C-alpha cells in the first residue's frame, strides 16, 4: 500500500490549519493599505487566536450543551473539508469520501449548528443573526449547486479530484459555461464566507451584522475555534475556487517535488485571490438585507446561463 497519499493528506490538513490565519492577515493587511490605514501585520490573526485560547470561557447561565458543542463541530467540519479539497495533490485519500455536494453539505452542517448556538442564549442578536444567516443560505445554496453542476457536467463527475484532472488534461479550457460558473461562484463565495457586500466580518453594528451576531456570546477557546474555523472557511473557498477553475499547478504525479511545487502555486493563487477579494470589498458597500435577493438571484442567473451555454454552445 502506498503511504505517500496519506502523508500528503496529513500535510495538507496541517497546512490549511497553519496558513489560514496568515491568509486572513494578508487580506486584512491589503485592505488596510488600500484604505490608507496602518496594518497590524499579517501575523495578527495568530496572536488573536493565541490570546483567545489562553483566556477563560465566560458562558451565559442558560447556555446548553449545543452552545458548547458547536465550536468543536464547526472546527471539525472545517478540518475535514480541508482534507477533501485538492490542494497539494489530486490523489488524496479523503477526496473520495466526499464529492462537491458533500462538501457543500459539510459547510451546511456547520452553519446549522452555528445558527442553533445563536438562538441558544435567547438574545435578540443571536436570533436575528440566525434568521438572516439561514435566509441567505437558502438563497445561496441553490446557486452554489447550480454553479457546481455546470462544472460537473463538463467533467462528468462531482468528485473534486476527478474535476481537477479533467480540467488539467485540457478537456475544458476556456469554456463559456466555465466563465459563467466562475462568476456565480465568486458571488456565492462572498455570501458563504460572510464578506462585503453580504456581511461585514469587521462590524459589530447591530443592524448589519449577521455572522458576528450569532457568535456574539462566545468567548475564550470557543471563540478561538470558531474564528479559526472561519479563517479556514475563507481559505478553503479560495482553494476550492482555485481547484475548480484554475487547477494548474496541483500535483498530478504523486512526487514530493510535485507536492512542493503545488504548495508554491497554492500560495501564489491565495495571494492573488486575496487581492481580488480586497478589490471587491473595497469597491462595494454592504447591501441591505433585502437587496441580497437580487445579488444572489444574479448569482443563480449566472449559474443557469452557464448551464444553458454548456448545452447550447458546447
Amino acid at each position, binding site marked *: 500500500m502506498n503511504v505517500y497519499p496519506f502523508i500528503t493528506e496529513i500535510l495538507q490538513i496541517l497546512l490549511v490549519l497553519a496558513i489560514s490565519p496568515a491568509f486572513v492577515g494578508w487580506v486584512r493587511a491589503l485592505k488596510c493599505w488600500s484604505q490608507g490605514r496602518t496594518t497590524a501585520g499579517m501575523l495578527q490573526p495568530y496572536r488573536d487566536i493565541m490570546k483567545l485560547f489562553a483566556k477563560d470561557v465566560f458562558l451565559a447561565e442558560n447556555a446548553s450543551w*449545543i452552545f458548547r458543542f458547536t465550536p468543536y463541530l464547526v472546527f471539525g467540519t472545517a478540518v475535514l473539508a480541508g482534507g477533501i479539497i485538492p490542494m497539494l495533490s489530486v490523489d488524496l485519500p479523503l477526496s473520495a469520501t466526499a464529492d462537491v455536494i458533500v462538501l457543500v453539505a459539510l459547510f451546511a452542517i456547520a452553519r446549522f449548528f452555528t445558527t442553533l448556538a445563536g438562538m441558544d442564549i*435567547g438574545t435578540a442578536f443571536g436570533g436575528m443573526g440566525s434568521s438572516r444567516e439561514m435566509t441567505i443560505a437558502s438563497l445561496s445554496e441553490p446557486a452554489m449547486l447550480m454553479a457546481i453542476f455546470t462544472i460537473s457536467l463538463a467533467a462528468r463527475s462531482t468528485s473534486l479530484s476527478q474535476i481537477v484532472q479533467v480540467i488539467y488534461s485540457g478537456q475544458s479550457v476556456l469554456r463559456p459555461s466555465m466563465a459563467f460558473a466562475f462568476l456565480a461562484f465568486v458571488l456565492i463565495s462572498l455570501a458563504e464566507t460572510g464578506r462585503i457586500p453580504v456581511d461585514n466580518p469587521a462590524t459589530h453594528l447591530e443592524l448589519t451584522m449577521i455572522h458576528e451576531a450569532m457568535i456574539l456570546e462566545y468567548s475564550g477557546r470557543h471563540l478561538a475555534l470558531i474564528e479559526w474555523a472561519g479563517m479556514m472557511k475563507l481559505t478553503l473557498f479560495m482553494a476550492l475556487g482555485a481547484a475548480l477553475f484554475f487547477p494548474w499547478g496541483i500535483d498530478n504525479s504523486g512526487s514530493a517535488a510535485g507536492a512542493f511545487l503545488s504548495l508554491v502555486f497554492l500560495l501564489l493563487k491565495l495571494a492573488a485571490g486575496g487581492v481580488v477579494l480586497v478589490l471587491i470589498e473595497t469597491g462595494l458597500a454592504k447591501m441591505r438585507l433585502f437587496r441580497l435577493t437580487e445579488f444572489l438571484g444574479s448569482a443563480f442567473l449566472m449559474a443557469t446561463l452557464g448551464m444553458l451555454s454548456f448545452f447550447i454552445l458546447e
Partner: protein
Amino acid sequence: MTASLLTVASWAVLLLLFTGFVSLLLHRRQGLMITVCFSIACVASALAIFAGFYSVSSGSTSQVIIAVGLPDLPFHLRLDPLAGFFMTVVGLLSLIVSVYSFGYVRHISAKRPVTRLVIFYALFLAGMLMVVLADDALFFLISWEVMAAASYFLVMFEDERVENRRAALLYMVVAHVGAIAILLSFGIMSGLATGFEGFHGYTFDAMRQAQFPPQWATAAFLLAFFGFGAKAGIIPLHVWLPEAHPVAPSNISALMSGVMLKTAIYGMVRVAFDLIRTFPWWWGALVLIVGLLSAVMGVLFALMQNDLKRLLAYSSVENIGIILIGIGLAMIFTSFQMPLLAGLALIAGLYHVLNHAMFKGLLFMGAGAVIHATHERNMERMGGLIHVLPWTSALFLVGCVSISGLPPFNGFASEWLTFQAFLLSPSLPSPLMKLLIPMGAALLALTAALSAACFVKAFGITFLGHWRGPHNPHIHEVNLPMRLGMIMAAILCLVLGILPTIMIDWMDKVPEQLVGTSIGQTAGAFGWMWLTPVAREHASYSGPIVFLVILSVIVVAWLLLHVRKGSIRRVPLWDCGFEKVTVRMQYTSTSFAMPIRRIFGFMFTIREQVRLDPRAAHRLFPGTIHYYLRVRDRFQVWLYRPLITASFRISRLVGRLQQGRIQAYLIYSFVTIIILLMFMR
C-alpha cells in the same frame, strides 16, 4: 421458504385484527389492555419486518388466493420485493411507534378511556399491511378503506373539540375523492384486461398481462396519480394534512405521516411500474414537476407555521415531493430505456421513503413528548426546553439534522442519491429534458436549504432560549417507553445515514423487479464503506469516514482544550449595559421566518396589520401595539374557496327538488321513466 414468508405476513395482519377483540375484552382494565395490545402490536410489527425484509433480500415472489370475500371473487395476496420493501418500512415504524405508545397512551388513559384508540390503532396497522399485500383491486380497495376509516377515527379521537371534527371530516372527504379516482383507475385497467364481460380482470395479475391502449393507460394513470396523490398530500391536494396531523394523537400522526402517506407512494409505483409498465416520458415529467412543486411549496408553508405539528405536517408534503422527484426521474429514465439510471433514481426515491419514515416518525414522537410535557402546541409560547427535556431535545435534534439533509444522517444519503440521479439526466436523448431537469436539481437544493432553515426554527424556538409562555409550568422529562421509541428511531436515522451501501444492496431487488436492473454491482463495488452510485470516478460518498473524521476532530479538539481545568465560568447574560434582558426580547417563530416570508411572499396570501392603541396620549407614544398576521395557502384561497362555494350553491339548487310532497316525487319518477323510455329503447 417464500410461501412461508407470506404466511408470516398474514399472521402479522391476523394478530393485529385479533388485537381489536382483545382490547374490547380488556375494556375495563385499561392499563392491562395497553400492555397486552401494544405488546401484540410489537410482535406483529416484528413479524411484518421479518417477512418484508426476507422477501426483499431473497428477491422472491409468492402468491396465495384466499377464498373469502364475495362469491367467485376471492382475495389475492402477494409478497414481492416491492411489497416487501414497503412492508418493512411499515413494520419498522409501527414497531417503534408501538414501543412509544406504551408510554404515550398510558398518559392519555389517565384522562379518558383509550379502548377506541387501541382498536383503531390495530386496525390501522392491519390496513396498511393489507394494502401492500393486496394483489387484486377488490382487496386493495377494501384494505385502503380499512386504513382510511381507521385513521379517520384516530384523527377524531378527541372528538369533543370542533376543530378535530372538522379536520377529520376534511380528511374523510379528500380520502374518498381520492378513493373514487383509484376505483375508476382500477376499473379502467380491469375492464381493458379482460373486456367488460368477465370478472377476472380485477386481479393485478390480469392487469400485468394486459396491453393497454395508450389513451386508456394515460387515463388510468392520471386517475391513479390523482387518487394516490390525494392520500400522499401532493400540492394542491395537501389541504387535509396540516389539519388532520396536528389534531390526531402524536403516535398516530407519526404513523400517518411516516408510513400511511407512503402507501400512496406504493400505489403509484405499483400502478406505473408494475401494472401499466410502458409509459411515455411525460408521465414521469408530470410526476417530477408535481414533486418539485410539492417540495418547494411544502417547505415554504412549513416555514410559516407556528404550530409544531402543523409545521411537521407541511414538511411531510415537502418530503413526499422529494420522493416523487426520485420516482418521476425513474419514470423518465425508464421511458427512454435507461434502466441503470432508472434504477438509481428509483432507489433514491425509495430510500427517501424509508428515511422519511424514520425521521418524521421521530419528529412527531418528539413533538408528542413536547406537547405532553408542556400542554402547548404553539411554538411561540415554548422555549428553553433543552434544560428540562434533555432526552427529548437531543433526540428531536437528531430528527431535525436528518430531515435537513445534513451528513452523516440518513436524510442526506437519499438527497445525495437524488442529486446524482439529476446529474445523470444529460445522457437523456431529448434536448428539452437535458436543459430543464438540472433546473429541478436547483429547486431540490432550494428545498434542502429551506428545510434546514425550517428545522433550525423548529428546534431553536422550541428547545433553545428562554421559556416564552405566560407562566412557568412544571415540566419534566417523558417516561421510559416514549424515550425508548424515540431512541430506536434516532439510532436508525444514524445507521441508515452512515451505512447506505448495505441498505441499497438489500433494496436492490426492487428495481430489479420493476425496471429490470440492479445498481448494487456499482453502488457497493468498493465495499460497504463507499457509496458509488455509478462509478467511483463519477461520485463517491463515505458516510462512516465522514462521521468518524468529524467525531475524532471534535474529540481531539475537546481533549486538547480541556487540559486546563475549571476555565469555564458561568455568568449572567450580558445585557449591553441597558436594562435587564427579558424573554420577550427573544426572536420568535414569526420573526425568525420574517425575511423568508418577505422574499417568498408572493407564494402566500398574507394579511398583516399593525394597530396602535387609539387611547394613547400621542400617536408617537402608543401604549399597546396590536400585531395581526395571517399567512395562508394560496391554494386555499384560489382553489378550495371557490370549490366549496360552488358545491354549496349546487347543493342548494339541487335541494330545491326536495319539496317534501309525495306528489312532486311521483312526478319526478314519472318524468324519469318517460325520459328513459325515450332514450334507452
